[in-house]
């Protein structure tokens, strides 16, 4: 855009919102100059390694650390010692009624409750020495019967993990509109299935990492932490170690992937902090891959029995859902392990008219690793259930699955729409998204090709999955439950002495592009070239307070705070210049780093001159006027529990009916995340999220023995999606900005994961249709496909 002014006029500053700019902060990562926690070395730094329980459930009879005290080892810390320094924690939320858990300690003191639970920490000069010495810690165990099957966890014969709770139930949620049994009784068709998702985990390439330093003279704790939530960690460390919160500094340097893994409390990390406090020197702990598999939070191990009632005319009349999932031996802290079940109970059938709806979700304790939020929390399970039932119903009625969906979507004029569960959708764009998707994939042509190929013994499938995805959560998610996880974010923008801006934000960078999003919004709102923007993130000592990165909230909430701060700074600058130049602020604009007359574009003052006047030549400033060129603004979304995004995905795949192998041919997504700040980032983030969903659909699962031993806990045995198996993924958008903010952005980080596995399941069952074979247990391994085909027993 060019201004209408003459040759002296500054050209209008570009609007960077919506522009696919490469990320300024990516260049150093490309040059190998990132700085992740493990790249930081401090003077006198020592290393932690952990002794972990080899049993899923065992009593610790005694621990003998005598042999471990070899040269190079500074200290061996056991559960009792850490328990004396760190208050125990209980992962319940006050506003989630009926949720229960038991006090948890960083290191198991008398009983270990999962294989991999940390029991003792060895602190040594090098990690290698610490690992050597950890093998010399003698633990005498008494193995106890383990609870490893969610299906039987509530049976009277099953041992109770926390006897004081009476049984192994952590949480139960019920939703009921009434009228469900009546609707099933009068239905023309009822379809039902049991959908099973197998426990899997985030597998960030950078494992969990922490470096803690303690200065006893000031009782100052400084922690470099691979975290998505610096302020949440500041609160936890201060609270549980009895430190003054301002004297706990949490720095998140480059973070090598988060996906929800790095929003939880981990005992080994707390024990590392305890070691730093005990020793008064820096202690580093970097989880290796083997211990990651047995100590990272896991997710998504559900069994959902569900049925749907439909009319001959093609209307969904009722949905009935019973979900059971096995968490770890404790509810996760501080967010609890109930959110998956809450989302399943809330959201099955949510994209459609819920005429009658009933759901129950139960979370039960098990002797398996801790369990909780992972990208798209619960949504993939809700989506698999909804979309699986929808395809079964369409097939039972002989309807095209796309048209069956269209008929049953919430009407376009239904918004805001409140679900049976009480959640409200501000506005969805289902019909538009479906139309766009069908056009992108050339649905009719693919259907024709599918029919043609079947005649030749080539089995291809087309699967659709409509999804909704929560974003921009309000305090209803956590804050109202009494845990200090901010629902609000803030931004401070400072005009620098030469007319640039530094932008400090409480959201941070975990690879998703937070830095770029913040700079693009700030540059646009203030009116400076983007090269003049420096972003400051990931440090509780220098950024304003806020929630950080989880729940698809960074751009929607953190970005709106940047938007408001930028707007406020621009207004302050214009008011100042108006006063200095005896003009009206409303007649001025900031373009390309200069204050100009809006009408002519003539430059009145450069921002450097503005800063120089305000900071150095204060004699030029009227005595009764104080320019404020550093501003802070905060934002919280308070209208809805979350501003839901929506969209639809499609998978096209081919099954080899002799081997059971699935080849993904192509994948399409239409996503509606409202305003997009940077489409380059949004699109690849959606693709990455889809690939995680594909991992769940085809490869990823934590396999356990009946005794609770993880059988595939290495990157050799646990399969993750690699480039070779992945299809090209075409991404399109519909755009329904949220009216809850001026920016209008909703989250883009999780939706891809929410819908991908359901699309693949439906495509696979579509491909297998000629054989009347169906699969509903994920991952869809060749073995499961062959079993469904009846080719193996």
């Amino acid at each position, binding site marked *: 855009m060019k201004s209408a002014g003459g040759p002296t006029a500054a050209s209008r500053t570009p609007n960077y919102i919506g522009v696919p700019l490469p990320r300024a902060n990516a260049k150093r990562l490309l040059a190998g100059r990132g700085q992740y926690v493990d790249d930081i070395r401090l003077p006198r730094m020592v290393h932690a390694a952990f002794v972990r329980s080899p049993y899923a459930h065992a009593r610790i009879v005694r621990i003998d650390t005598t042999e471990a005290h070899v040269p190079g080892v500074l200290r061996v810390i056991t559960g009792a010692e850490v328990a004396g320094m760190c208050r125990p924690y209980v992962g319940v939320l006050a506003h989630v009624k009926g949720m229960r858990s038991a006090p948890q300690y960083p290191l198991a003191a008398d009983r270990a409750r999962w294989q991999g639970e940390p029991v003792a920490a060895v602190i040594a000069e090098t990690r290698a020495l610490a690992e050597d010495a950890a093998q010399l810690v003698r633990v005498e165990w008494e193995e106890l019967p383990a609870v490893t099957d969610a299906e039987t966890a509530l049976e009277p014969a099953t041992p109770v993990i926390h006897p004081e709770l009476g049984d192994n139930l952590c949480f139960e949620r019920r939703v009921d509109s009434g009228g469900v049994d009546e609707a099933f009784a009068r239905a023309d068709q009822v379809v039902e299935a049991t959908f099973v998702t197998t426990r899997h985990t985030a597998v960030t390439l950078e494992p969990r990492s922490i470096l803690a330093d303690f200065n006893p003279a000031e009782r100052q704790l400084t922690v470099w932490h691979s975290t998505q939530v610096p302020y949440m960690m500041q609160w936890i460390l201060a609270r549980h170690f009895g430190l003054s919160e301002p004297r706990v500094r949490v720095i998140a340097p480059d973070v090598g992937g988060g996906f929800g893994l790095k929003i939880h409390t981990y005992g080994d990390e707390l024990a590392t902090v305890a070691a730093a406090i005990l020793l008064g020197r820096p202690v580093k702990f970097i989880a290796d891959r083997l211990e990651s598999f047995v100590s990272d939070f896991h997710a998504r191990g559900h069994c959902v029995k569900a049925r749907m009632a439909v009319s001959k005319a093609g209307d969904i009349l009722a949905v009935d859902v019973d979900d059971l999932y096995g968490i770890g031996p404790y509810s996760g802290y501080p967010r609890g392990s109930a959110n998956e079940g809450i989302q399943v109970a809330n959201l099955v059938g949510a994209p459609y008219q819920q005429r009658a709806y009933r759901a129950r979700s139960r979370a039960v304790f098990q002797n398996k690793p801790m369990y909780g939020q992972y990208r798209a929390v619960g949504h993939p399970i809700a989506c698999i259930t909804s979309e699986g039932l929808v395809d079964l119903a369409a097939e039972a009625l002989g309807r095209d699955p796309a048209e069956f969906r269209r008929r049953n979507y919430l009407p376009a004029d239904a918004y805001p729409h409140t679900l049976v569960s009480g959640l409200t959708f501000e506005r969805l764009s289902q019909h538009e998204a479906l139309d766009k998707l069908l056009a992108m994939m050339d649905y009719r042509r693919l259907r024709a090709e599918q029919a043609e190929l079947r005649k030749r013994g080539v089995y291809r499938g087309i699967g659709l999955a409509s999804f909704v995805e929560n974003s921009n959560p309000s305090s209803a998610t956590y804050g109202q439950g009494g845990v200090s996880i901010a629902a609000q974010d803030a931004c401070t923008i400072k005009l620098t002495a030469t007319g640039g801006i530094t932008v400090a934000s409480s959201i941070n960078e975990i690879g998703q592009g937070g830095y770029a999003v913040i700079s693009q919004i700030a540059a646009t709102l203030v009116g400076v070239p983007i090269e003049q923007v420096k972003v400051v993130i990931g440090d509780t000592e220098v950024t304003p307070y806020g929630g950080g990165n989880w729940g698809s909230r960074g751009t929607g909430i953190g970005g709106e705070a940047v938007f408001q701060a930028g707007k406020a700074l621009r207004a302050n600058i214009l008011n100042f210049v108006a006063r200095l130049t005896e003009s009206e602020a409303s007649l001025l604009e900031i373009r390309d780093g200069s204050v100009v007359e809006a009408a002519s574009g003539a430059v009145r003052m450069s921002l450097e001159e503005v800063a120089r006047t305000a900071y150095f030549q204060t004699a030029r400033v009227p005595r009764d006027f104080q320019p404020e060129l550093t501003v802070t603004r905060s934002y919280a979304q308070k209208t809805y529990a979350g501003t839901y995004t929506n969209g639809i995905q499609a998978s096209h795949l081919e099954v080899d009916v002799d081997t059971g192998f699935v080849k993904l041919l192509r994948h399409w997504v239409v996503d509606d995340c409202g305003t997009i700040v940077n489409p380059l*980032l949004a699109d690849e983030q959606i693709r990455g999220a889809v690939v995680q969903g594909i991992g769940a659909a085809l490869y990823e699962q934590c396999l356990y023995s009946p005794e609770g031993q993880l059988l595939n806990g290495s990157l050799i045995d646990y399969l993750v999606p690699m480039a070779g198996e992945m299809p090209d993924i075409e991404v399109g958008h519909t755009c329904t900005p949220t009216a809850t903010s001026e920016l209008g952005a909703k989250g883009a980080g999780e939706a891809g994961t929410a819908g991908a596995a359901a699309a693949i399941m439906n495509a696979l069952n579509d491909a297998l249709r000629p054989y009347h074979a169906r699969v509903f247990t994920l991952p869809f391994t060749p073995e499961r496909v062959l079993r469904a085909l009846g080719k193996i027993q």
Partner: protein
Amino acid sequence: MREPAEIMEVKLVVNGETISRRVAVRQNLVDFLREELGLTGSHFGCEHGVCGACTVVVDGEMVRGCLVLAAQCDGARVETIEGLSGNGALADLQRAFHERNALQCGFCTPGMLLTAAELLARNPRPSREEIRAHLSGNYCRCTGYQAIVDAVEAVCRARREEAAS
């Protein structure tokens, strides 16, 4: 306690610099590069040779730095992301990755770049499937791999065009 780790003297050339160190014979190459030389661009992702985050070049061959001992590199020439960035060998790949946002958290990126460079050195005209297959030893959890494949494809095309002109 086991016998104390044996120490060995090694002399090698890392990114063009001659280095002499006494190393524990059990120390792997990436640990050596990171801990002894401060070259932290090569990362540990699995320590099983599966994820590719530790990829470096030894005597012209791409290797998993976690599966090679520093002691084995006595007399070798080792190149890492830092050296190959400094000498411009990866400049077009780095530019293409940047333009297409073919990285998010960046943890896999050094290994991914080195692997892509190896492919381009061997095969100037890889198909999209060949690119995908070649990169399949490098795990990226953030992107959908597509931007990476696009970037490598674009560099292949540009290099061919440059060679033809």
